[in-house]
């Protein structure tokens, strides 16, 4: 599973009601003809955040980013950056730089000229351009490629040129559209950490668009999950993963087992769900706000389920099933277990020991159990 590259942020600025947002998206809607690309989105992004807009293709995340850059105007609603209303301010006058998905490097210019382009537009003195471009190329470790043209560089090098070009003007806000999309897996992981380091070093506010949930988990201070033009949930990677607010978010981020059931006990400190799919009851050690007898779903992550050959001694949160598939992934194993109801449950177990007991095999009867804190009850 993805790990977060940044240490836990102790002071969560977004929880402070007094904090002034750096970017304020206020009830923004964007329509293309009849198609609503972004639907009444409101967001507050704070200084030095690395905010990820996460969603599948066509969910409106790129349109939202392009509205921040000024390439699209909202149909309704307003965008404030550093307190200034951005309506009718063209892209070339916004205090924002963007790193494009395709990098959009100027093919007829050298790396150096590409990076210097933005500074030249601002009429920065020649010697200053030189030192700032040099510093930037040093930062992304491309000094020896300064005289190359973009087509003479590898994908990873191009990505770093694009990054250098968008950072050289020291923008307060940097927009990144799928910044790592074109890189292969190893390079991507490496670059993720570089990006986070750079962001912390320079103190720039990043807004990143991505469809890759692992990337979002690794990079961001907070994630905004989008679907069909709307923001479904905003929260830290941990919030989003451990406390999804809807079935969509639970299923979009990582894997999840969803058990439909009926609330039979609804107390402030616990609930009990009777699930025919599970063939038993689910006990959850926290309350939920839902109507009694409501049909809800309990979401349990695959890694939070314990698989055993003997029946654990607990009445709730237990299920019996037959192992249908085992996939050995090296660092962990994935088991697919079929319950009596026909429901297939996904369980992942770390391979802590080298000779992990081959005790569990295909077609064996096993017991699944989990802690009462693990399930998340979702009503929508």
């Amino acid at each position, binding site marked *: 599973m993805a790990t977060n590259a940044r240490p836990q942020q102790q002071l969560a600025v977004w929880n402070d009601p007094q904090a002034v947002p750096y970017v304020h998206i206020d009830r923004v809607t964007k329509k293309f003809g009849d198609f609503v690309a972004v639907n009444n989105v409101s967001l507050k992004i704070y200084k030095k955040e690395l905010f990820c807009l996460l969603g599948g293709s066509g969910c409106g995340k790129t349109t939202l980013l392009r509205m921040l850059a000024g390439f699209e105007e909202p149909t309704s609603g307003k965008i404030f950056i550093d307190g200034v209303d951005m309506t009718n301010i063209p892209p070339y006058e916004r205090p924002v730089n963007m790193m494009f998905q395709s990098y959009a490097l100027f093919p007829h210019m050298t790396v150096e000229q590409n990076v210097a*382009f933005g500074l030249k537009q601002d009429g920065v003195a020649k010697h200053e351009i030189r030192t700032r471009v040099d510093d930037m190329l040093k930062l992304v470790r491309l000094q020896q490629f300064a005289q190359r043209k973009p087509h003479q560089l590898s994908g990873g090098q191009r990505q770093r040129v694009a990054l250098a070009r968008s950072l050289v003007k020291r923008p307060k806000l940097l927009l990144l559209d799928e910044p790592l999309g074109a890189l292969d897996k190893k390079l991507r992981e490496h670059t993720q950490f570089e990006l986070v380091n750079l962001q912390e070093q320079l103190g720039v506010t990043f807004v990143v668009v991505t469809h890759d949930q692992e990337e979002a988990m690794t990079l961001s201070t907070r994630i905004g999950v989008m679907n069909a033009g709307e923001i479904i949930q905003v929260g830290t990677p941990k919030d989003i993963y451990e406390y999804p607010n809807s079935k969509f978010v639970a299923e979009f981020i990582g894997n999840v087992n969803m058990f439909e059931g009926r609330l039979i006990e609804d107390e402030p400190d616990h609930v009990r769900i009777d699930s025919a799919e599970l063939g038993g009851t689910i006990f959850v050690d926290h309350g939920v706000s839902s109507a009694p007898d409501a049909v809800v779903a309990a979401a349990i992550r695959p890694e939070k389920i314990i698989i055993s050959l003997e029946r654990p001694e607990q009445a709730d949160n237990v299920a019996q099933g037959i192992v249908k598939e085992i996939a050995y992934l090296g660092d962990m194993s994935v088991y697919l277990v079929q319950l009596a109801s026909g429901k297939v449950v996904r369980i992942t177990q770390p391979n802590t020991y080298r000779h992990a007991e081959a005790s569990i095999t295909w077609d064996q009867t096993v017991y699944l159990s989990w802690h009462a804190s693990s399930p998340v009850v979702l009503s929508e």
Partner: protein
Amino acid sequence: MNARAEAPRRHRQSAGVQLILDFLQRLPPYRWTQARLVRWGLTGRTLVTAVPYFWLLLFFLVPFIIVLKISFAEARIGIPPYSPLLNWVDGSLAQIRLNFATFQNMIQDSLYWKAYLNSIKVAAVSTLFCLLIGYPMAYAIARAQSTWRHILLMMVILPFWTSFLLRVYAWIGILKNNGLINNFLMWTGLIEQPIVMLQTDFAIYVGIVYSYLPFMILPLYSNLEKMDLTLLEAAADLGAKPFKTFLTITLPLSMPGIVAGSMLVFIPAVGEFVIPELLGPSDSLMIGKVLWQVFFTKRDWPAACAVAIALLLLLVIPIVMLQRAQAAEARGAHR
């Protein structure tokens, strides 16, 4: 053994056709011919590429050699109206008579120089105007909505459906003293006397720019249409105002289109004959007209051929230089 290696790749064909082909390939003449051709280095690929080469050889190189040959002959009265280059006596080559006098004349006679220079001037100015008019048009078409784009392109190509000659004649009706423009201006009362436009250099420029504009627009369009628009967004994002973006990004990236369009206009415009003949003043010095006069009025074939050869050299040198520059650039692009 070579025959098998070079056997044509089988494409998906109907079973019947495949059967016949298989059968034919087994026949001795096929295999024998193929083996022979391969031995001479004639594989399927070389044969296919040979077709355009053969075409060029037949319709370009051979006529060129004939013209070159005539340019070194002496004019005489008779059929053909020039002396032979090679004299044969008793079936063996007796002498080669190369006559350089024609070329010497051409260098000494300032008429030719002036005609060449004037042609180049007219062609260059026309090319510049074509570029100034054609670039915005190509740009507008390339940025138009895709439904409009095809209609606009069609309108650029549409004049080709009418004879070139007819279209030039039509300009006479527009430009002459009691033509469309003068009648309109006199009707509005802007002028009292008609403006003399026909049979002026102005008319030549109008005719050339009008006739060759599509040749400028089409390559420019195909270049501008392919341009990656995110580059323009990137430039705007980095603080470049629209006009600056045009100068620093669009214009340099459309250079190949500009060069191609300019070549397509400049080269035929230099040798243009019909337009200056019909629209220009009778004493206009264009090399195409001079060529026509030398050939048909003076009936001096060698001189006419020499003029043509000189014109060709004049145009070949910049083309070769251009190609070298482009090849160097392409090498740089793929290093």
